[in-house]
């Protein structure tokens, strides 16, 4: 329950003490990345667990028409659904703003890093392209859905194989796989750093997320920053951001190893 001991969590965090005694820059263990859903349904899938937090992601591929401004490029859709099955806090109905933000932050890391070679997703310029749908569903929210969803999206992309496509008839045969993977160029990894008081921490638990002043999600690929999102009501100083970026670069290296 949300309660007054929130003040207490905050007061401890300000002293650098976490409820579960982790150090501020430590992710919870175990971090598990595994494949779950049989190839029969999705073209690629992954399950990511960061201790208690669990999300599943699935990739669906279909052939459609390109956008007029990018006639020779495929398209990506990223969607996170906060399904009420997973948590008493998630509600039925159209996606609320939290789900929209989560979707867009995951989307941006993939899109802006150029994780996929979009030109290789073109079937016939101006007419047919591959559309990549990445759908992500948290099954348990024990905090840090941002990093878990981002990691699951990349693991699912790595797992995906094109179904067979008949260019003459324009029919995708979902029952047979081509065994050809997606044109992955690089792997963006996201780390969300929280600021509470004068402390910075990663991989917040559900309770710690309630205590944040500000958060900064930083996606890193090829040693560069590829997407960012600042959240929370508190403001950040330039120095805060420097420190948070340094933490994110260190943490994303740990997460990257989980994809190997």
């Amino acid at each position: 329950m949300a309660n007054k001991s929130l003040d207490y969590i905050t007061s401890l965090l300000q002293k650098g003490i976490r409820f579960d005694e982790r150090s501020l820059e430590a992710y919870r263990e175990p971090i598990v990345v595994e494949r779950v859903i049989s190839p029969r349904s999705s073209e690629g899938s992954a399950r990511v667990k960061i201790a208690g937090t669990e999300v599943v992601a699935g990739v669906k591929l279909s052939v459609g028409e390109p956008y007029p401004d990018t006639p020779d490029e495929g398209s990506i859709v990223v969607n996170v659904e906060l399904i009420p099955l997973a948590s008493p806090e998630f509600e039925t109905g159209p996606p609320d703003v939290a789900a929209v933000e989560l979707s867009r932050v995951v989307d941006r890391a993939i899109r802006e890093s150029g994780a996929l070679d979009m030109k290789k997703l073109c079937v016939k310029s101006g007419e047919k392209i591959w559309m990549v749908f990445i759908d992500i569903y948290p099954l348990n929210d024990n905090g840090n859905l941002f990093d878990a969803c981002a990691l699951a999206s990349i693991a699912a992309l790595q797992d995906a194989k094109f179904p067979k496509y008949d260019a003459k008839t324009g029919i995708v045969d979902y029952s047979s796989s081509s065994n050809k993977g997606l044109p992955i160029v690089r792997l963006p990894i996201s780390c969300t750093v929280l600021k509470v008081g004068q402390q910075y921490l990663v991989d917040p638990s559900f309770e710690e997320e309630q205590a944040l002043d500000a958060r900064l999600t930083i996606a890193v690929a090829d040693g560069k920053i590829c997407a960012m999102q600042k959240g929370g009501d508190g403001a950040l100083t330039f120095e805060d951001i420097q420190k948070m970026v340094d933490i994110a670069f260190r943490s994303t290296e740990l997460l990257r190893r989980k994809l190997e």
Partner: protein
Amino acid sequence: MSLLIKEKQLVIPGETLAKGMDFVPSDGTYRDGDEIVCGQLGLISVHGRVLRIIPLAGRYIPREEDVVIGRVVNMSLSSWQIDIGYAYEANLSLRDASSDFIERGSDLAKYYDFGDIVTCKVIQVNRAKFVDLTVKGPGLKKLKGGRIINISIAKIPRVIGKQGSMVSLIKQVTGCEITIGQNGRVWISGEPEKEYLAERSIYLVEREPQHVGLTDKVKAFLERGGVDGK
């Protein structure tokens, strides 16, 4: 004319527990013709001729005389609304809020403000499950600081232990103050690392299947500073 199950066996809804008229159905069981049937997942308890189910799960249902840990979520001009972990909030009226006289029209936030944690007692529950609370009585008060954890209602007796032995042990080793509400909320207050140790030992008790040497196991766990023996 026979019992088909053993004491403390896990039984499943619809399962036949006894045949014949020698036994009497109680909580979580029902009669169907000449059979007594399980009507709730749980452990069967046979007490003389009476069969009842000890549930393993389920949310808190308020009952009179329960001592619960609540949180102030709202206030009107003459009462507070308290979240006690049930679907709807319970009511704490002026006359039950304090042994001091609170004058009508005074600022209620001076006594209990939003977010305050209070141990209180259920004094009345009606058919529609409206609940009245009181904070007048021994041990009933506002709680300051500390952490609150939630445990399964079904596991409360085990966390308390025989004559309070389990919770006393945890209090003694950690030096924490611990209050257990019948609504499954446990308030722990002490040194942060001791609170964490107390929290984990309570989860250990909650998690373990019924275990004869549980007290010794918890004692060893506490003495090792929270390292599991396995």
